């Protein structure tokens, strides 16, 4: 599991506590682990659990909260 993006829990804003959803793009799948390496708009990367939105493919856009993809997004649409 990669480290969280540095802004994830900054002093004035915790994106996990705050129910934020982060739009990310799937870069690479690790089907055996049920995880996908994903990137956000700023280039931050993290491993994301995809069980709730499977099947996903490389290039798919997903909404991520607390390390889990909670919804699929239409291509190139913000959340």
């Amino acid at each position, binding site marked *: 599991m990669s480290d969280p993006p540095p802004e*994830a829990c900054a002093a*004035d804003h915790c994106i996990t506590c705050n129910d934020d959803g982060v739009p990310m793009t799937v870069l690479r799948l690790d089907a055996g682990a049920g995880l996908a390496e994903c990137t956000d708009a700023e280039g931050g990367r993290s491993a994301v659990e995809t069980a709730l939105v499977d099947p996903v493919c490389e290039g798919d856009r997903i*909404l991520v909260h607390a390390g889990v993809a909670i919804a699929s997004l239409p291509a190139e649409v913000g959340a």
Partner: protein
Amino acid sequence: MKFVDEFRDADLGRAGAGEILSLVEPGRHYKVMEVCGGHTHSIYKYGVDDLLPSNVELVHGPGCPVCVIPMGRVDDGIALAHTEGVIFTCFGDMMRVPGAQGTLLEAKAAGADVRMVYSPLDALRIAKENPDREVVFYAIGFETTAPSTALTLKRARAEGVANFSCMSNHVTIVPPLRALLESPDLRLDGFIGPGHVSTIVGARPFEFIPADYGKPVVISGFEPLDILQSVAMVLRQLAEGRCAVENQYTRVVPYDGNLRALEVMAEVFELRPHFEWRGLGFISHSGLRLSEAYADLDAERRFSVPGVRVADPKACQCGEVLKGVIKPWECKVFGTACTPERPIGTCMVSSEGACAAYYNYGRFARDREVV
């Protein structure tokens, strides 16, 4: 990314404000509650309320996951963190929430092994890296976050991670809304429904609000134009004399939610008979605990947890703020004894909290002048 700037377009915002103005009756005062703290944060970050007519008031609801955790549960977490051999993990904001025994951050300073995590999966990773230690994940959040905890517990079970457990403080959104609607001191005209919670539960659970209470609900996205459009949709329903659940956030929220997430939550969690909410008291069937099938991963059963109820600080009026009865600046300690740096109440801890949103985005000075 496309379509982010578009949702923050100033001209479209002014057009939306004009539409809202055309929908209100002069002389009528409208109170619309945004349920989700994420909306509260966006409203003050982008100044959405400045675009509304003076007779349209946004009331900030109880949808901030950190703000509703009572002091006793914080103290329970601190006691667990001080347990010999425990690595205590939680989200960042939670570390600054004050209980009667201080904060988890202070417990860390006093020697407890308290670690901030970004997701429950990070806590599980810490457990796998420290097989000789007990790793406790202190779970908070509404239905947006509960599936992540549930999936992590399933993964811990599947991978045989025996030194991992969870203290669940997960809560559900519908019971407090019903409690608010039954509250005699609060009159609301409609609701801006929570966007990301609805990604999981869908729009259907909110149908009781128009059906039983005759008030409109609009599930909303989090960009400023989303919120303006949602306010307009609520006002349009009122102007047309109807009430229904409408979904403004269709690009993300399916009407039926995420069925797989609901299934995994039903497998791992069960409803508590009652759960205490900061400022709101005990609300029936509003909290989630681990189900019998996952009892072995329940930190409250694995360890001795004090479970002492602690009354909210007398000076703090988070309860009235969470119910929308008073505005943050009307609290006696707002901006003086209670600040984001040294919060007394939970609403000042998280940026989703109404008090912190007022304080951080300049409402403090402006509203004090108005008062």
